[in-house]
C-alpha cells in the first residue's frame, strides 16, 4: 500500500493535461524535481497557482506547459523580472498565458478557504486598487463586493480555490504521505490541503514511527496524498532548511540563459530534457560544477532540542 514511486510515474499518473495545479515553495522547498518532470513530459494547458512565484513558474511558462496562472507576483528576485513571463505577456512567446491576479493576502486566503471547505472568504485588501478592475478567466467570480450583513460596510469576498493536484517538497514524509516540514511555510499547508490530491516530494522517506515522534510537524495527512517521491536535493536551486542552501550561482545561470529564447531552450535541454531524472540532474551538476561546489551547498550542522509527547 506504499505510495512511493519515481517522479516520472507520479507525474504521468497524477498530472493530467488541463489540470489546475498548486505548486508549493517559496525559494524554500520549491518542488523543482517535479517542475522539471512536468516540462520533460510536455504537459499542456495547465493552470498553475501559488503566491509569490519565481524561477520555477517562469520556467514552466517558457516551456509552454502553462495556459493560465492564478498569481500574485512573479519575479526572479535578486535576478530581476521573470524573462519567460515577460516574453509570454509582452510578446506571446511561446504563447500568451491568461492571468488572474490577486495578492499575497487574498490568494493564500482563497487556498485556506479551499482547504477548509469554506465557499468564499472576506478579505480587507484589494479595495481601491486596479486589481479589482481587471478580470480574466474567472470573470465575475474573481471576487464579489457585498454590504456586510453584520454592519453594512462594503466587504470584498474572494472564492475558495480547489486545485486538482498540489505538488509540494518537504523535509520528510512516510511512505503513505504524512508530510512534515519546519521553517518557512509560504502557502504550502493551505495549498496542499485545498487540492483534491497531493504529490509529496521529500528529502527523505522516514518510517511512520518517526512521523509519530513529532506529529505537530505534519502539514498534510496521508489520506490526501496520491504519491510520495523521495527526491534528495529536489528543491535545487531553491533550498530546504536543514538540508542545503540556495544556489545563488545557479540562479544567475538561469537568469543569463533565460535572457533569450535560445538560451532558455539550451538551458532546458541541458538541465531538463537531457537528464532523465533528479539523480541524473545531480550527477550532471556535480560533473559540471565539481563536487566541492555541490558539497558546499550542504547545510551546516545546527540541531535544536528534542521534545516529548509522553504523559
Amino acid at each position, binding site marked *: 500500500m506504499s505510495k512511493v514511486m519515481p517522479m516520472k510515474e507520479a507525474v504521468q499518473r497524477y498530472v493530467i493535461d488541463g489540470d489546475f495545479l498548486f505548486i508549493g515553495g517559496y525559494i524554500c522547498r520549491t518542488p523543482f524535481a517535479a517542475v522539471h518532470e512536468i516540462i520533460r513530459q510536455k504537459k499542456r494547458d495547465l493552470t498553475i497557482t501559488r503566491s509569490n512565484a519565481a524561477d520555477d513558474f517562469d520556467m514552466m511558462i517558457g516551456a509552454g506547459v502553462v495556459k493560465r496562472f492564478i498569481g500574485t*507576483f512573479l519575479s526572479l528576485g535578486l535576478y530581476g523580472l521573470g524573462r519567460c513571463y515577460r516574453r509570454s505577456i509582452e510578446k506571446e512567446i511561446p504563447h500568451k498565458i491568461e492571468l488572474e491576479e490577486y495578492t499575497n493576502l487574498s490568494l493564500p486566503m482563497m487556498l485556506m478557504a479551499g482547504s477548509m471547505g469554506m465557499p468564499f472568504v472576506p478579505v480587507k*485588501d484589494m479595495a481601491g*486598487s486596479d486589481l479589482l478592475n481587471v478580470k480574466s478567466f474567472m470573470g465575475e467570480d474573481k471576487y464579489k463586493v457585498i454590504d456586510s450583513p453584520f454592519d453594512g460596510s462594503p466587504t470584498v469576498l474572494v472564492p475558495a480555490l480547489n486545485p486538482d493536484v498540489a505538488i509540494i517538497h518537504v523535509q520528510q514524509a512516510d511512505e503513505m504521505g504524512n508530510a512534515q516540514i519546519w521553517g*518557512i511555510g509560504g502557502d504550502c499547508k493551505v495549498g496542499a490541503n485545498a487540492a483534491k490530491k497531493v504529490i509529496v516530494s521529500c528529502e527523505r522517506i522516514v518510517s511512520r514511527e518517526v512521523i509519530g515522534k513529532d506529529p505537530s510537524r505534519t502539514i498534510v495527512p496521508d489520506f490526501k496524498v496520491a504519491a510520495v517521491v523521495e527526491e534528495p536535493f529536489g528543491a535545487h536551486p531553491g533550498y530546504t532548511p536543514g538540508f542545503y542552501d540556495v544556489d545563488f550561482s545557479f540562479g544567475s545561470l538561469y537568469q543569463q540563459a533565460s535572457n533569450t529564447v535560445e538560451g532558455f531552450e539550451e538551458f532546458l535541454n541541458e538541465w531538463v530534457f537531457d537528464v532523465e531524472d533528479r539523480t541524473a540532474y545531480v550527477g550532471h551538476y556535480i560533473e559540471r560544477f565539481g563536487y566541492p561546489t555541490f558539497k558546499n551547498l550542504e547545510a551546516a550542522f545546527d540541531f535544536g532540542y528534542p521534545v516529548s509527547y509522553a504523559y
Partner: protein
Amino acid sequence: MHTHPDDYIKPELMACCGAREITDGNIVIVGTGFPTMSANIAKYTNAPNATLMQESGVYDARPVRPALSVGDPCLNPGAAMIGGLVDVMGMFLQSGWVDVGFLSGSQVDKFGNINTTVIGDYEKPTSRLPGSGGANPIGSLAKKILIIALHDKRRLSERVDFITTPGYIDGPGSREKRGLPAGTGPGVIITNKAVLRFDDDTKEAYLATYHPDSSVDEVVSLTPWDLKVSDDVHETEPPREEELRVVREILDPFGMIKIYEGRGYV
C-alpha cells in the same frame, strides 16, 4: 550632538531616513534591501524594541547576513516564530497589528499610489512587472507606509498606469470610501533626492527635506507634478556616525548595499 561622516553613499542615507520613521516598539513588515536595513538600523538606534516580520511566515528573524529575499534561508534559524503566509498576512497584518510597512514601486504617484504591475496598457503592456505580491495588502493594512523610490519623471508620476497598491487613491476620503481601515496610508516617500511627506488635507506628497547634494529646485524639477514645498523645508540630516557604524559593522559587513548604487540610487 551627532557626528555626520561625509563618506556615505546614497542608499545608506535612504536607509537611515527609513530608520528614523520607526518608533520604538513598532512592528514592521519588511521585504529586502533598504527596508530590512532601515528597520535594523532603527533596532540598533532609536527603536531597540521594534520587531520585524516577513510575509513568507517569519517573525523576529535573526539573520547573520542581509536577507536577499523574504524567503531567504538566513531567516529561518533563530526566528521567534515561523508559520506561513496566512499567519503573517492574515493573523498579523489583516488583523491590524502591523505598524510600519515598506514598499517600493516602478511608479509612484502624488497620492502615494504604487504600480508594480504593468507599464502601459494592462492587456498589451510595454513592460510586465512582477505584480502585487505582498505590496497591496501591506499598503492597504499597515498603519504607516514608507515608500522607497527613484526620483525621476519616469518613476514618479502624476498618476500611475495601474494602482497595484492604493495610497490615497484620488485624494482625501478615498481610502475610507473604499473601506480601507482608518488610520492607514502612506506616510513618506524616500527618494534618492529627497523626503516627501503627505499633506493632511490634500493627501498630496510635498517636499519635506532635500538630500545634502540636492536642492529644492532640483527636486521640484525632477518631480512630474506641481510639487508643493514645505514652509520649513530644509536639508535631510545625513547619516549619523552611529547609524553608519550599524550598517557597516553589524548589518552589512560585506557592503551589499552598494548594489543599489548600480540600480540608480545615487
